[in-house]
């Protein structure tokens, strides 16, 4: 089974590079070659309905997150190392969106572009550090819940590994972002959510 990687991001620049399944997942999730060498590699199956929903929602929410971090940086409520938390978060969101876009392309789907969205942030979202953090956490928790569900239910082990990795990254971002305002203790068991619930949580921001 062939996979294609999205190379350009502008609508007229989208180019696809043929990659094999192993290389796609290696570069996407950063999982080890030893893991990918397991007996299930190559047992390609068609994407399930849930696989499609997780990836489509994930790409869109990561674009939203990228926009959140960009606007939070422009808001200038965070300086120095605190601003770096936002920069790293933005970089992670960009990488996650690209990875999930590639996954959708491998399913034979056309991934969304960030230009497809008119994100709508409430007026005072970026007016103070606590307000910024509060909104960011809503988006991050919705994504974490979805990735937890995807890591448990995706149809192929490869995808589960990918979503576990994405979930861990979002968990790290939740910790880092919380520390910028009012540090709170880590949750013992963050709740997994379905796409419907996560979508409802961030729908107002997606425009």
């Amino acid at each position, binding site marked *: 089974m062939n996979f294609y990687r999205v190379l350009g991001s502008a*609508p007229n620049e989208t180019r696809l590079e043929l990659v094999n399944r192993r290389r796609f997942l290696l570069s996407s999730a950063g999982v080890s070659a030893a893991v990918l060498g397991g007996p299930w590699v190559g047992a390609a199956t068609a994407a*399930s*309905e*849930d*696989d*499609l*929903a*997780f990836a*489509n*929602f994930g*790409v*869109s*929410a990561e674009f939203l997150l990228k926009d959140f971090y960009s606007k939070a940086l422009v808001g200038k409520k965070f300086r120095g190392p605190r601003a770096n938390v936002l920069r790293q978060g933005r970089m992670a969101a960009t990488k996650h969106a690209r990875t999930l876009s590639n996954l959708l392309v491998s399913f034979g*789907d*056309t991934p*969304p*572009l960030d*230009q*497809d*969205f008119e994100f709508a942030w409430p007026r005072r979202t970026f007016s103070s550090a606590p307000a910024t953090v509060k909104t960011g956490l809503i988006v991050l928790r919705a994504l974490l819940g979805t990735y937890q569900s995807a890591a448990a239910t995706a149809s192929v082990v490869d995808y589960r590994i990918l979503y576990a990795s994405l979930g861990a990254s979002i968990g790290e971002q939740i910790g880092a972002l919380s520390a910028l305002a009012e540090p709170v203790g880590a949750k013992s068991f963050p709740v997994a959510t379905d*796409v*419907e619930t996560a*979508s409802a949580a961030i*729908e107002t921001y*997606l*425009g």
Partner: protein
Amino acid sequence: MRNRFAALFAIALVAASSLASSAGARRQANPLTIYAAASLTEVFSSFDRAQRYNFAGSNALETQIRNGAPADVFASAAPLNTQRLFQARMVDKPVTFTSNRLVLIVPRSNPAGIHSVYDLKRKPVKLVIAGAAVPVGGYTRTVLRKMGLTSVLSKVVSQESDVKAVTGKVALGQADAGFVYATDARPVRTQVSVIRIPAWAQPRIRYEIAVVSRSSHKAAARAWVKKILSPRGQRALRNAGFLPIPKASR
């Protein structure tokens, strides 16, 4: 001398006004023939009543133009139809002129108790959608695929030839739910309830317009396309609920 000037001026005025009125009469006598997607019915008809319209599914209009139908302008609800005709050199280069959103509509009485798109999967429903070749039918399938709900296609009781037929069936209570453009739900808002589709699941809806190559009124057709792209045309579309030209198409 002064009287002669006045007389000449009066003659010139009469001549000018008679020329203008004959031009107006010619325009009325030879309106443009505009083939447009069914979803543009209300907005185009009220924007310019002087033209002759043929509203239908864009795929059907494409076929008619391909078979030599005497259209001057083609406005499609999906780029696929205009671009195919452009490739065949049957229309000039198409331009994007507006956008739209898909919604789910249910009859006001909502007999199936549908409150979210996900309810289509959970509850027994009679769903009506447009055929796969019709732009709105293609967009519907994209939404269902993105949301992981393609299994609800098994609940489709009827596939229609255009969006107005889908709207009509739901408004009359002949189906429990149907996917239509947001702009098509507006004229029947007293008969249906609208359920939003999340932004992340929305398809990329682009309307394109082009002058038909065989048109014998190409200058007038080009002027009409310009009128649609003008601030006045764009305002009329926005007032009807259409969305601005998407960022990616500007």
